[in-house]
């Protein structure tokens, strides 16, 4: 496979995609887990399927459609949540199912053979194109810049939003920027893990790393490493078999999650013994 990596462009693309995805997913995942935005992210991801469908129907890049729809979903959910007293879960569920329904509708209306949507739903790292890669890199740069330049503000905002509001910071701005970050992250991840499995890659590495360290930035680092290992294992398995990358990644992730959980239990157990 190493020789192939040097030879084939699609493998190089896949490798670069794995790197970008794990950096972005690892860092944003920690934010999502700490701020309890897992379902919100799931909602945004699934809504983007409408955009994929629209892309096929009107003949433009489906990933651009996903980009538009996920931004709209993020802002839409944010605005409605702030304006109404309705439950957040229900608003998310509406977007989630409406997006999927639109996607199915648009794809049904697309003339000719039904397009291969499964790579968008379940991810296929081996089909990442140069165009995908360029888009992913641009988004990754935007996401990482926003996070690092305003790191202290994010930290305070994630820990206690009420307090940042009392300090008269523009918490609304932070909140909407955060939602847009989620939308961009979803777009970066879709080609690799697929719409349905996005939240797995965003939540599992981050929660697993929370068992290992109590420092925010270290959590981000661990979570990046975990993500990279998962995606790479997905890449290898997909290369030799026909199994979709997303599925392999999720299996690897869940296994590692259990292992870190057991490891942290063992540490606790040892400490208890010492205490006695």
């Amino acid at each position, binding site marked *: 496979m190493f020789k192939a990596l040097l030879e084939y462009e699609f493998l190089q693309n896949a490798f670069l995609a794995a790197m970008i995805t794990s950096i972005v997913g690892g860092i944003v995942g920690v934010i999502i887990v*700490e701020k309890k935005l897992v379902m919100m992210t799931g909602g945004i991801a699934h809504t983007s399927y409408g955009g994929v469908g629209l892309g096929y129907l009107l003949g433009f890049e489906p990933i651009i459609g996903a980009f538009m729809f996920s931004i709209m979903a993020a802002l839409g959910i944010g605005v409605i949540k702030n304006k109404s*007293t309705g439950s957040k879960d229900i608003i998310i569920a509406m977007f989630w199912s409406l997006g999927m329904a639109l996607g199915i509708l648009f794809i049904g209306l697309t003339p000719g053979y039904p397009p291969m949507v499964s790579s968008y739903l379940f991810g296929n790292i081996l089909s990442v194109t140069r165009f995908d890669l360029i888009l992913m890199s641009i988004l990754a740069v935007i996401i990482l810049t926003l996070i690092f*330049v*305003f790191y*202290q*503000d994010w*930290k*305070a905002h*994630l*820990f*206690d939003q*009420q*307090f*940042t*509001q*009392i*300090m*008269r*910071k*523009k918490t609304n*701005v*932070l909140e909407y920027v955060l939602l847009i970050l989620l939308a961009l992250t979803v777009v970066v991840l879709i080609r690799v893990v697929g719409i349905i499995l996005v939240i797995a890659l965003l939540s599992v590495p981050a929660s697993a790393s*929370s068992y290992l*360290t*109590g*420092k*925010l930035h270290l*959590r981000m680092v661990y979570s990046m490493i975990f993500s990279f290992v998962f995606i790479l294992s997905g890449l290898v398995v997909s290369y030799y078999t026909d199994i979709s990358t997303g599925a392999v990644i999720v299996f690897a992730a869940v296994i590692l999650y259990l292992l870190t959980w057991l490891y942290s239990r063992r540490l606790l157990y040892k400490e208890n013994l010492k205490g006695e």
Partner: protein
Amino acid sequence: MRPLKIELNEISVNYGKIHALKNLNLTINEGDYIGIVGPNGGGKSTMMKSILGLIKPSKGKITYCGTSLKKSDIRMGYVPQISDINRMFPITVEEVVLSGRMSKEIRPFFKYSEEDKKAVEEVLDTVGLKKLKNRQINELSGGEFQKMIIARALTLKPDILLLDEPTAMVDVMSQRQIFSLIKKLSKDITIVLITHHVQMISKNVKKLIYLDRNIIAEGDPNQVYQYAYLRPVHQSIKKRVVGGAHV
């Protein structure tokens, strides 16, 4: 002390069909030390959040030294009910307290200065947490956590300190410590304190308020305490039934 006057004028707050506060009037002046008591769900936290601008009242107006919150430069320190905060968040004591020195603007590449760190050190000393500066917050006891949150509120040099049940999850010794700390602070800062530990504060506060959707009793701590808690139970029930609205 800087001049301070916060006026709540006919404030009502509804959550859907629930009326948490109804036509509430209250004035807070500089130097006040007000205790607020009342039943669970009586609207105490709601009132405090309205003052802080976290909740918009559905009716009525709150003025701060005669103007709106936005235009005034009042600094308010807030110690929220402990259940409102994520105690497992990966952050150290020092970092939490430092956030009280955060700038109002969202600034790129913001870093806390040495001066900020010194100020934090001082405040941590005041609340007795100097040794725990570098601890992760998930390793703190309930009492230590509360003192940290009080420290965070103090670092912004507030004109008024609003505390929502700062002794809720705290053992009796730490309760005493926290209340005596607040008493000491009350010499320099205006204080509004919500608590269920009425006996422990009734000697300290200058004014006690019994709140149940509206101010039921207000004034001298002893009298309010007697009125709200010591009158025979049947009498208090009768009063509510006969009066319909609260007195």
